[in-house]
């Protein structure tokens, strides 16, 4: 396994949100275990996909990795910097090098700021360019880079369509010249025809600027297309991690298998011919995860010890890791 050139390293990351009760004095009575021990690395220039359904903790993981939430346990290293320990200048340096693109093109831009102000904010906060004129020039360059006409500099977000607003978000993320970008469901809110535009843009930028992406999504077809490696999350833990083709062609974990079989294929003959594993029940709550292997209540292969012992994270094939007792 090639471990050189690692840009992002996450070790046993946990993020719990306390649940409190009490009117005047609040006591903690439990915790939502949104992320409960995940580990992976991302090489420079690579795209790692993080997939899972609602409540699996992928968005929380992305935000915690970036430092937006303080982690409850575990280590995060981006370009050698320890996210948990960074303060002051180092913290600002990380904020320059690691950025985020958001899901909602309507809520991720300040409605009262012009596009110019929005995109140049990183330049001002980090004092990267001294004069207003130089900043405007850079903003125009960035707008062209993402495919927006620079003449629209002084307009407001509400004057743009969803796809264009996502491009503005991308331009803003690129302003401080980052190395690593967390893409948190960047295309889920867009129409199909615009999704392809934005995905192509992200890929072109990755080539041009040697960017590294953590691509968080629930659309499994798009993830296969854009990601090099894919990690599948369920209830706060990663259950499988592999190269993208390997994962889709040889899924080992029962949840991955069920997930893939649930993805509709836009081909009527193929879709109707295939065997589907329909999972029973709903995704349980991260407040009270099942004991042992979290997936055991819905798993068709579950055995006695699956409910007692949490499965180990093992490498079954080269670069293909699974957490499941039943996989040999």
């Amino acid at each position: 396994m090639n471990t050189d050139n690692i840009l992002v390293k996450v070790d046993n990351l946990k993020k719990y949100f306390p649940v409190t009760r009490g009117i005047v004095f609040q006591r903690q009575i439990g915790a939502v275990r949104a992320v409960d021990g995940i580990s992976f690395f991302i090489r420079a220039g690579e795209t790692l996909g993080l997939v899972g359904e609602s409540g699996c903790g992928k968005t929380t993981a992305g935000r915690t990795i970036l430092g937006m939430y303080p982690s409850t346990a575990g280590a995060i290293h981006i370009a050698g910097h320890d996210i948990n320990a960074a303060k002051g200048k180092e913290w600002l340096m990380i904020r320059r090098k690691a950025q985020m693109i958001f899901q909602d093109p309507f809520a991720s831009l300040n409605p009262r700021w012009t596009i110019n102000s929005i995109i140049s904010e990183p330049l001002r906060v980090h004092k990267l360019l001294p004069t207003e004129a130089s900043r405007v020039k850079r903003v125009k360059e960035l707008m062209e880079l993402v495919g927006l006409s620079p003449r629209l500099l002084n307009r407001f977000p509400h004057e743009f369509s969803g796809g264009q607003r996502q491009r503005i978000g991308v331009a803003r993320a690129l302003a401080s010249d980052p190395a690593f970008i967390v893409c948190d469901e960047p295309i889920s809110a867009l129409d199909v025809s615009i999704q392809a535009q934005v995905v192509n843009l992200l890929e072109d930028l990755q080539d041009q600027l040697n960017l590294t992406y953590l691509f968080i999504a629930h659309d499994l077809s798009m993830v296969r297309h854009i990601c090099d490696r894919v990690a599948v999350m369920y209830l706060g833990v990663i259950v499988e991690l592999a190269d993208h083709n390997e994962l889709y062609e040889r899924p080992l974990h029962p949840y991955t298998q069920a997930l893939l079989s649930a993805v509709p294929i836009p081909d009527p003959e193929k879709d109707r011919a295939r065997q589907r594993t329909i999972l029973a029940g709903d995704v349980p709550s991260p407040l009270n995860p099942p004991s042992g292997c979290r997936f055991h209540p819905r798993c068709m292969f579950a055995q006695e010890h699956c409910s007692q012992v949490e499965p180990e994270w093992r490498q079954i094939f080269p670069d293909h890791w699974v957490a499941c007792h039943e996989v040999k």
Partner: protein
Amino acid sequence: MAIDTVTAPGPTQASLDDLLAPPLTLRQLFWRRFRRHKMALFGSVLLVVLVLYATLGAFVFSESYANFTETGIRLQAPSAAHPFGTDTVGRDILARTIYGGQISLLIGITAALIETFIGVLVGALAGYYGGKLDNLLMRLTETMLSVPQLFLLIVMAKFFGGKVPDLALFGRTFSGSVIVIIGIIGLTSWMYVARIVRAEFLSLKENEFILAARAIGTPRWQIILYHILPNSIAPIVVGATLGVANAITTEAYISFLGLGVQPPTATWGNMLEGAYNYIETAPWLWIFPGILIVLTVLGINFLGDGLRDALDPRSRAA
């Protein structure tokens, strides 16, 4: 690399951008909505007239004339020489309403500014930081709210009244009691604004663009001042506007109780106080200042309604 094309000979991106709806800035949107609100326009006009009355009237009558007592002509009904009549010590009521208006409006506006400033400060800090600070500030707010305002006003008026010296400004002397009144109204009315601002901050800080600002590394004070505050302008403006009306009415009844601004400085409120014993016998003593108070408060309320509708980004009626 601009947008990718699928061998399309169609229009360029530049011209597609022009196909966007013609840009309406937020300000234009605001004016369009405001103009449609008939009551708001009426209210604005009314207020303009009243302000002109109080300011331009000062060129017609001098302050000394307004304070000029002549007991020989006391309690005269409206006449040609004194269109609003004279009061208990023979002062011209018309002139007094003009100068009284100046003081009442001054008190209203200044008190509203103070209470808005304090309210925004408290609400913003409580809403943004949450946790213990929020707890502390909110308990303070609730304590202030649970004490009856009238009681607070009376106690503070008694305590501070007479302790503040007169202020000489712009060639005029302002009775110390004016400062006191402005202060105590401001200090006892900020809670309403604070609660509204806190609610706005609590909801706005969950927005993704705030998370984006944090991800960029924007310092917290900049986030509060430049990101969240501009987006919560609407309830603050409305709150401040209605605060003016509230301050004017509060001054009126504080003065009516004799604890407000002390004569000879006139305010609409203390003119009402002077009319207490003559309600039926000399109605012109209270009718004129009373009508002026009502018109002012009405105008402000209409204006406030219009502002609320025009500034509310959720309202689709444009």
